[in-house]
């Protein structure tokens, strides 16, 4: 009954280990590579944020030049979306979904490896830009056009150097990797479920990855198309966005947001999956309203394709155009609200255990609620005419991405780290991580709404005194210290627990889905025998033979 906490045996050479990881097509190893890669870039984008917050803590600061600042915010946003959020969600999905559906690997293991290496290479290409040109101290020739790279700022006339090219090419590569990854996930979920696992018995995380995959297919592709058009303009003299030839700048803006809005749903939907797995286990109750959760998620996926121009309320669409997008954007809030109520109802009447994964989920619920409410303010076009492109928007989307997505990712780490590493993360350090990060998050992003309301635009490297912005910016900058502390505690926790944490065993949380039916970490083949399942919670059925789920579903 020996438990092997470490997945590697001691006899392998260092070179052999490296080759094993570089050449692997195993979904668990690829998942871990995605996750480690994302954490590396999370730290890098955090450093970019720290530098920017130092610059913005005071009016008329000269800590950073405008050129460096503009490169930093472009890299920060681009990195966050494409080289932190997407890969980390792919990482968890790749690792967990085959285990959860009782499969041995993803549908296309070698394509899986291809996806990872395309994404990885894209990130390295983007960051090569920091070292080119004038060198790292000036942030090289990193792209400086904002993460949405509006035309005509990206035209050869206004961006004569290669900065924009790094942006275009690295994202093109990463996009190909994402599309392949999405096709892989869809085929896995539709084709590799174990016997008895109908779609209505699948864990919600698997459902969310399915919806995410479908959304990626129609979301990343418009960006790929727009980037190909930009390349035609920049490299071979095309006129897609060339105003002098009659081209339309607004067309870029439409195409970008046709990608950009569903993309944020691509990011949040798997996080809904994490919360939907963790909240029931730590409330000791089945997920309330499983069919509604599925329907709401699919509905969100579809409606999210029709809301993009709420990023364009200031661009000058006619009034009926603006009104249409107000309506669709508010409509998408309905299924999102339904999900929050279902999670609440899951907790209601339960026996809530406040382990670290659950703490982060409760933080998620609170912050996602607020982010949704500030989102509705932005959906109200006239209100948006004031708030767009201001720090209110920056506060809103960081509320979603950090307060929502990152909190749920932390929850996922604490919940599934034992399965992946064979040892649990230290609970005391976890609580320290949670509270420090919570304080830091709220200091930075709650107060960030205020400068927006007081007229501070985004993407400015400095600001005048006397606008009433200094105090709030200073508070936001101070919050960074606590967030950094939280992250350092988290990283330390992971390293220490990996080396000498308490062995986890198969099922440390007393959970109900199939990944907990195998060892921690799982063997290469996942499960010795492909199981047959009769309900949504196969392990509940085993642990409660007198009261199995399949009697009630």
């Amino acid at each position: 009954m020996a438990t092997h906490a470490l997945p590697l045996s001691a006899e392998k050479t260092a070179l052999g280990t490296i080759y094993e990881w570089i050449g692997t097509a195993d979904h668990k190893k690829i998942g871990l590579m995605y996750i480690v890669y994302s954490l590396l870039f999370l730290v890098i984008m955090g450093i970019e944020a720290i530098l920017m917050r130092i610059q913005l803590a005071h009016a008329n600061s000269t800590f950073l030049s405008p050129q460096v600042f503009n490169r930093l915010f472009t890299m920060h946003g681009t990195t966050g979306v494409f080289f932190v959020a997407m890969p980390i969600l792919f990482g968890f999905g790749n690792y967990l979904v085959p285990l959860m559906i009782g499969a041995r690997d993803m549908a296309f293991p070698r394509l899986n490896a291809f996806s990872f290496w395309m994404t990885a290479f894209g990130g390295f290409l983007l960051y090569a830009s920091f070292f080119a040109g004038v060198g790292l101290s000036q942030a090289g020739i990193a792209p400086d056009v904002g993460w949405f790279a509006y035309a005509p700022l990206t035209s050869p006339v206004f961006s004569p150097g290669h900065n924009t090219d790094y942006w275009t090419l690295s994202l093109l590569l990463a996009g190909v990797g994402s599309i392949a990854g999405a096709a892989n996930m869809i085929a896995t979920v539709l084709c590799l479920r174990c016997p008895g696992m109908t779609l209505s018995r699948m864990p919600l995380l698997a459902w969310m990855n399915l919806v995410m995959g479908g959304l990626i297919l129609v979301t990343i592709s418009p960006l790929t198309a727009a980037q190909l058009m930009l390349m035609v303009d920049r490299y071979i003299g095309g006129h897609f966005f060339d105003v002098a030839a009659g081209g339309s700048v607004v067309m870029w803006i439409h195409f970008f947001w046709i990608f950009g809005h569903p993309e944020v749903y691509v990011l949040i939907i798997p996080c809904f999956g994490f919360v939907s797995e963790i909240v029931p286990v730590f409330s000791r109750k089945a997920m309330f309203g499983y069919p509604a959760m599925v329907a709401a998620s699919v509905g969100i996926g579809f409606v999210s394709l029709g809301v993009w121009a709420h990023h364009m309320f200031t661009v000058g669409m006619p009034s009926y155009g603006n009104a249409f997008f107000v309506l669709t954007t508010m409509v998408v809030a309905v299924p999102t609200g339904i999900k929050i109520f279902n999670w609440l109802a899951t907790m209601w009447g339960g026996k809530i255990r406040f382990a670290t994964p659950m703490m982060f989920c409760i933080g998620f619920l609170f912050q996602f609620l607020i982010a949704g409410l500030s989102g509705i303010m932005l959906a109200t076009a006239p209100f948006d005419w004031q708030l767009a492109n201001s720090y209110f928007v920056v506060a809103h989307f960081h509320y979603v991405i950090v307060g929502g997505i990152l909190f749920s990712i932390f929850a996922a780490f604490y919940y599934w780290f034992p399965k992946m590493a064979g040892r649990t993360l230290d609970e005391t350090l976890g609580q320290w991580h949670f509270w420090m990060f919570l304080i830091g998050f709220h200091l930075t992003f709650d107060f960030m709404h205020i400068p927006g309301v007081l007229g501070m635009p985004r993407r400015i490297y400095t600001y005048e005194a006397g606008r009433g912005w200094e105090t709030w910016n200073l508070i936001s900058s101070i919050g960074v210290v606590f967030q950094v502390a939280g992250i350092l505690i988290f990283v330390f926790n992971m390293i220490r627990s990996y080396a000498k944490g308490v062995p986890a065993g198969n099922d440390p949380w007393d959970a109900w889905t199939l990944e907990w039916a195998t060892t921690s970490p799982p063997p290469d083949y996942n499960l010795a025998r492909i199981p047959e399942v009769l309900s949504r919670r196969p392990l509940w059925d085993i642990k409660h033979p007198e009261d199995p789920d399949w009697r009630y579903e």
Partner: protein
Amino acid sequence: MSTHPAVIESNAASWTLPSRGKVGMVSLIIAESAIFTIFIAAYIFYIGKSISGPSPHEILRIPIMTTICLLSSSLTMHWAVTALEKGQTSVFISFWLLTFALGAIFIGGTAREWHHLIVDQGFTIQTNLFGTTYYSLVGLHASHVTAGLIALFIVGAFGLAGKLKREHSERCEVIAMYWHFVDAVWVVVFTVVYIIGR
């Protein structure tokens, strides 16, 4: 906190799920459709908006022959795969190679048309909005046809070496799905560029 894997024995022989090759190809087709949709939207939006230079009406000749070749290649592709499903490998290889030939004629015809436009008439991707959108859209499609031809070539080589049997018919069917998609895109591109836009 058990360390023994807890599983339920499986005895379900009737559990069938879709083929992953087909699901994967459908996913790819959906993504590619989205890319083409964006290029077609740009093409349609820019119809009549060129400030200078030749218009489609002045300069485009309708590629009837190459279109017939490409569209009939879908038929020959279908016959090829059907033959392989029945184990008729020689019928399969004949139709497969015919499909390749028809696709190659399409590419050759496109190349000729472009040579005439670029070299004889000086009409390039830089000329005006029409030039940019035309070469981009038709070129995007042609690159997809070319990728298909490469796949057809590889499979054709295996076929000529006698390696393909009935059990490979599903994989050929997956390639056939891609080929039909490329033909369907041509129907749309042809309509937009040579009929509506002209």
